[in-house]
């Protein structure tokens, strides 16, 4: 294994002044949107995609990746200080983190969240370096049938690990796939579902869809809630946790990292689910369960490590198989496509500096984030005092400029408005938009591989079960579906997701 020489090459590529700068910007923007409730990484990456036109591929991906894991750090700050999750992945942190802050221990809570995240990020980065090449080697053997089954597994996983009704999640997947077929047919070039509108003859731009469904709909929902933010008054003193705190947390950080790393690789949103799993586990293992919810430091350390580990390892399926496991990674597919890179196992062999440079940058970015988040926490607290009435027009403006600049098309901006209303409707009827976006990105790939596989097999659908890898993937998918439909597990799953609300 020459993991270390590869990593050295990666660090060489990431350590240029430009790439370090981009990594810093990504981490900074990530923290910013993480701290601000109501602006998530999906919308932010969508807004910033046009800017990446002007960067080289490595720089662009370094910056966008930084936004994603940076948001995991920033989200905890708001959770601890305001008792409101800055990101969906930091919902659990509010439980004990805010209690700690009320007891005057905001400093240690913030510190342990950042340090736990850093530890988790480091471990997860090494996991990518170790397992990435193995998975990529396996993926080299994949034909159309395997790819089809793999994507099917990914989509099934996204429904199982989504919150809320499974049937509704599946219907969102199907709707996403259907939307993905809009545009010209890949073989015959015939227009499909374009309603004669020339602007969507080449398909719906997925940035448009993402900005509408996530950016605009989110604003509409936030305006409705109109909650008051009360930042805890007074200075945060004594950042450093005591030796006792560290001893108490370390096992929680380790377990959180493990849970997060595994859930991140799986399809579905690992960074959102992992903190719940970690919190539940810590509560089960604790000697005195009554401490939880009253400022137990393990209740901050475990989940915060888990969400960051999950955010990092979700890059593994993207970089090695070319399959995005969640909606944020689907955005990364878009970023890579813009740069002319086809995500998949060939990235590592044909573009090793890109692959290893990105991994190295993740570790650098995590180190930067500790500094951005701890000594500078005062700045972020002040930022939280910016009222939403000023924030959302700014977000809207950036959304519109971002979308317009992709194709200089006014119609794309109109589509953002339409998808914004669609997203609002979905929210009002408890349909989740994340599986839709994922399916939208996977749709064309799924169709292409299905058609190819059927052509190779001369129309015999048994190809999907006679090829061993494909069969295994399908069995796992079927198992997942069966599992979620079992009454006992269904009940348990509802309980888990119920706690989050």
């Amino acid at each position, binding site marked *: 294994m020459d993991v270390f020489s590869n990593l050295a090459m990666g660090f060489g590529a990431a350590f240029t002044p430009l790439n370090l700068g981009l990594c810093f910007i990504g981490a900074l923007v990530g923290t910013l949107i993480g701290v601000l409730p109501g602006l998530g990484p999906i919308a932010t990456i969508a807004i910033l995609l*046009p800017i990446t036109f*002007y960067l080289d591929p490595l720089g662009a991906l370094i910056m966008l990746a930084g936004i994603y894991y940076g948001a995991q750090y920033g989200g905890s700050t708001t959770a601890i200080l305001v008792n409101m999750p800055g990101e969906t992945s930091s919902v659990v942190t509010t439980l004990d983190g805010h209690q700690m802050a009320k007891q005057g221990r905001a400093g240690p809570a913030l510190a342990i969240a950042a340090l736990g995240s850093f530890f988790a990020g480091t471990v997860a980065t090494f996991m990518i370096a170790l397992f990435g090449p193995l998975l990529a080697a396996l993926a080299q053997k994949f034909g159309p049938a395997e790819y089809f089954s793999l994507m099917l597994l990914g989509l099934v996983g996204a429904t199982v690990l989504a919150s809320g009704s499974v*049937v*509704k999640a*599946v*219907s969102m997947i*199907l*709707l996403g796939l*259907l939307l993905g*077929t809009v545009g010209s*047919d890949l*073989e*015959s070039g*015939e227009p*499909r*579902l374009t*309603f004669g509108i020339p602007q969507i003859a080449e398909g719906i731009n997925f940035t448009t869809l993402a900005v509408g469904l996530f950016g*605009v709909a989110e*604003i*509409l929902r936030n*305006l*409705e809630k*109109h909650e008051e933010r009360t930042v805890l008054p007074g200075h945060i003193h004594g950042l450093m946790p005591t030796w006792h705190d560290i001893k108490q947390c370390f096992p929680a950080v380790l377990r959180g990292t493990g849970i997060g790393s595994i859930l991140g690789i799986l399809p579905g949103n690992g960074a959102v689910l992992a903190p719940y799993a970690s919190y539940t586990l810590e509560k089960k293992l604790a000697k005195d369960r009554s401490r939880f919810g009253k400022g137990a430091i393990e209740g901050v350390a475990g989940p915060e490590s888990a969400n960051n580990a999950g955010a990092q390892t979700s890059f593994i399926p993207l970089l090695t198989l070319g399959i995005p496991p969640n909606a944020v990674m689907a955005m990364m597919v878009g970023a890579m496509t813009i740069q002319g890179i086809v995500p998949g196992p060939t990235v590592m062999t044909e573009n090793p500096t890109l692959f290893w440079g990105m991994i190295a940058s993740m570790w650098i970015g995590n180190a930067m984030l500790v500094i951005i988040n701890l000594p500078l926490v005062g700045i972020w607290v002040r930022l939280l005092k910016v*009222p*939403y*009435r*000023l924030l*959302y*027009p*700014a977000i*809207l*403006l*950036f*959304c*519109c*400029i971002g979308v*317009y*600049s992709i194709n*200089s098309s*006014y119609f794309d*901006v*109109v589509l*953002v*408005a339409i998808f*914004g*209303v669609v997203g*609002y*409707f979905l929210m*009002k*009827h*408890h*349909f989740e938009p994340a599986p839709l976006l994922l399916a939208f990105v996977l749709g064309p790939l799924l*169709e292409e591989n*299905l*058609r190819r596989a*059927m*052509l190779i*097999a*001369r*129309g015999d659908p048994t190809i999907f079960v006679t090829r061993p890898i494909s069969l295994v993937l399908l069995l796992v998918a079927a198992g997942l579906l069966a599992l979620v439909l079992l009454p006992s597990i269904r009940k348990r799953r509802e309980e888990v997701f119920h706690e989050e609300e």
Partner: protein
Amino acid sequence: MASPRIRSPQDVVGGLALVVVAAVAWSQLGELKMGTAMRMGPGYFPTVLSWLVGLFGLFIAGRGLVHDGPPLDRWGWRHIIPVIGAIVLFAFAIRPLGLVLSGAGIVLVASFAAPDLRWRETIIFGGALVLFTVLLFKVALGLPFAVWPRF
């Protein structure tokens, strides 16, 4: 036992919306060739999907008739109209009017949705914001926008 009352209006409406989308999609696919399982035509995949979307919509709506669920939520038109209006305004204004005017327009129109609006603050902040976007997108990134109206 099913009662005549709709038990989960949220699901019934949501499911029916899916059925409508599926029907519209399906009606647009008429001209496309289905092909065979071996050599699938352009119509194959979308047709299957539109049927599936419709079936799931029916199932969700049907389940909403039988099982209890939440009532319909009110729509916050007071927020929707300014926000969506601002986006549409921007879409049609950016080419003829340029970044400064359409940017200011989107901030001002969207601000009507704020429940706690303060005009003075919004105007000052909006001005600074538009200046920032011009500097970022035009000066720093050199995107091909017009900054001022074209005559």
